[in-house]
């Protein structure tokens, strides 16, 4: 009886968690904790996935790890400036190529996002040494790293957009020295190696404030401000892969998949009822709890559902049904040989060996594919991983519902009704 109460409690709790927070104007009552919504991958909900390859050829081996994590955090900052919900920025490596994978959902101005996220924005001040023909530019130690803030302004003389910059106290000192050395000369400013402005220094500038004027459009100046504020990328990057899914395609594929899924599950329910009658009913209830627990855990763990992820889920549904079928078929055989209660226990015992061995084999495979240890020679992101994670989770839950829930329900069922 205690166990039955526990099952009923589990059922009600997972029904509550699984229900959407809002559905057709009805809002689910919330208690102290708020249940998060189901998360869908960009192949379902629409969004984009950008893969940048980092050029680490100029970085010394020792400093590479640090430079890459710096790269990731700058990219994260830039992504956040777009106000994207749930952005995902990840490092990945394969065959010596270092990559950053950026996943964004629901951005309208994708092109702008790509250019802002991927621009190196390495700002550098250079001096001109020598005169006339022999003049050469010389790099200085004043760079974008010395900035404390950048903002968009309009030049008071001609109304052109410009970028006002403020240096850190260190940077202000360097800037003071630099301008002091170069009174009456040009002080070019390079962005990613290209000169964007070459103002003439009329006097030594104290206080660490300056303005970059160039032939910017407002848009360009805005982007530059964003990039400078987020910091320069420590390593130049190149876009090697992108995927943009419009929300219409996503919505269509999810609607169809839901309908197909419901019809499929309905078909399985009917089949189980026809094949196994009362036992099938118990199995169907077990399957329902299985699905509810799975959806609840997706929500609680924040697992992002993608199309391959749904495939993993469907496979685990198949395996959950299989556990039941294995037990029922054994039960059919045992029923003739002993009383029903013993037959049930024995068929559970015998079926368990094969359920355990088969499911562990599946878990082993999904463990390798999900690569939880982030081993470099295996997939560290992408579709295969999503598949493996939902499969592994599904197998674990199906072992639980198959053995704990269906078993106890069947015991009660057999006692009451004598199948």
């Amino acid at each position, binding site marked *: 009886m205690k166990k039955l109460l526990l099952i009923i409690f589990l059922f009600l709790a997972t029904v509550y968690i699984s229900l959407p927070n809002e559905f057709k104007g009805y809002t689910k009552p919330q208690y102290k904790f708020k249940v998060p919504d189901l998360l869908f991958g960009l*192949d379902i909900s629409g969004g984009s996935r950008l*893969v940048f390859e980092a050029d680490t050829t100029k970085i010394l081996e020792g400093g590479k790890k640090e430079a890459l994590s710096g790269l990731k955090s700058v990219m994260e900052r830039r992504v956040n400036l777009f106000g994207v919900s749930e952005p995902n920025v990840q490092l990945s490596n*394969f*065959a010596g190529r270092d990559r950053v994978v950026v996943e964004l959902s629901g951005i309208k101005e994708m*092109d702008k996002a*790509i*250019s802002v996220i991927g621009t190196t924005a390495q700002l550098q001040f250079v001096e001109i040494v020598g005169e006339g023909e022999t003049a050469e530019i010389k790099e200085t130690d004043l760079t974008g790293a010395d900035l404390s803030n950048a903002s968009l302004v309009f030049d008071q003389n001609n109304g052109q957009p410009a970028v006002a910059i403020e240096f850190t106290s260190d940077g202000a000192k360097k800037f003071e020295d630099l301008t002091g050395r170069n009174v009456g000369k040009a002080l070019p400013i390079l962005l990613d190696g290209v000169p964007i402005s070459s103002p003439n220094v009329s006097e030594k500038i104290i206080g660490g404030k300056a303005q970059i004027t160039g032939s910017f459009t407002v848009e360009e100046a805005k982007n530059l401000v964003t990039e400078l504020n987020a910091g320069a990328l420590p390593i130049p990057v190149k876009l*090697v*892969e*992108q*995927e*943009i899914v*419009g929300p*219409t*395609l996503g919505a*269509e*594929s*999810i609607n*169809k*998949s839901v309908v*197909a*899924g419901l*019809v*499929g*599950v309905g078909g*399985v329910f009917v*089949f*189980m009822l026809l094949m196994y009658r009362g036992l099938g009913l118990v199995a169907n209830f077990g399957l329902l709890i299985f699905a509810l627990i799975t959806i609840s855990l997706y929500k609680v763990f924040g697992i992002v559902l993608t*199309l*391959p992820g749904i*495939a993993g889920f469907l*496979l685990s*549904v*198949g395996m959950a*049904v299989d556990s039941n*079928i*294995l037990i029922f*078929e054994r039960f059919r055989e045992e029923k003739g040989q002993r009383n029903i209660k013993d037959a049930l226990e024995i068929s559970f015992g015998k079926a368990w*060996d*094969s359920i355990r*061995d*088969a*499911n*562990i*084999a*599946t878990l*082993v*495979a*999904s*463990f*390798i*594919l999900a690569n939880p240890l982030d081993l470099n*020679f*295996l*997939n560290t992101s*992408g*579709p*295969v991983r999503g*598949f*493996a994670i939902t499969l592994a989770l599904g197998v674990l839950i199906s072992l639980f519902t198959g053995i704990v829930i269906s078993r106890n329900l069947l015991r009660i069922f057999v006692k009451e009704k004598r199948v």
Partner: protein
Amino acid sequence: MKWMKYKWVYFLFSGLFIVVGIYSTVTLGFKIGVDFTGGAVISYQIKDQSKKEQIKTTLLEGKEKPRSVQETNNNLLVAKFAELTTEQRNEINTFLKEKNEGAFEEVKFETVGPSMGRELIIKTVIALVVSSSLILLWIAIQFKSVKFGVSAVLAMLHDTLILLGSASILGRFGMEVDYLFVTAMLTILSFSVHDTIVVYDRIREMGRGGDSESVADTAISGTMRRSINNSLTIIIMLVALVALGGESTKWFATILLIGTISGTYSSPFVAVPILVTWEKLLARHKK
């Protein structure tokens, strides 16, 4: 029933399918998706049916020539290009808009550098080799014999060959080998082993005594109903997905469907016959 009496029939039957599959793979090859070849794909949703042909012509007239323009059955035009930059993609869309304003909407844009595809294949193959070895090891330990492990993995290989052959033949009907195919294949390999272990379990339960052939016969008879019923539930699910699901999952579900049938078949009719033949050869050798 004396299932094992006909084991050469099963070998011949499987062999026939595998040979056809290999022949098709060698002669037709695969239709490889952008995930692996690299390149760009733009999908357009057609809003004005009457302009579909015109949009198609406009696409072919543009500066960037698509390699192919395909129609799918839910009003999508899928144009494939060699690599495209963001600027080139914008040019294509502007050009299309000039002539067909309001008749279409870009719903998907995808570009993949060729190196990414290679990476996915290499990593997946590594993952397959590692997980097959671990599964082999696990079965060998649980069933206290390497023969069980090797036969199960050979049955898995049988299913892999069947799926590759099917992919090659279905390529004629528009199926592409992409990352979803890879996922489907991984699903079936897990399923195949899962199914094989259930039959093995019966053999183990009956103990080592007696003739291996008759033990196998009883084991197969004992698990046949379960195998068929279990496959039927999965097949019901997949048929629903093939018939009603979206375009993006249609081929995926089809491959899973073929794989489920092959995976179910390969347990009693590939893994077990290999096991029995192996044990018989061994016994003969000992004499």
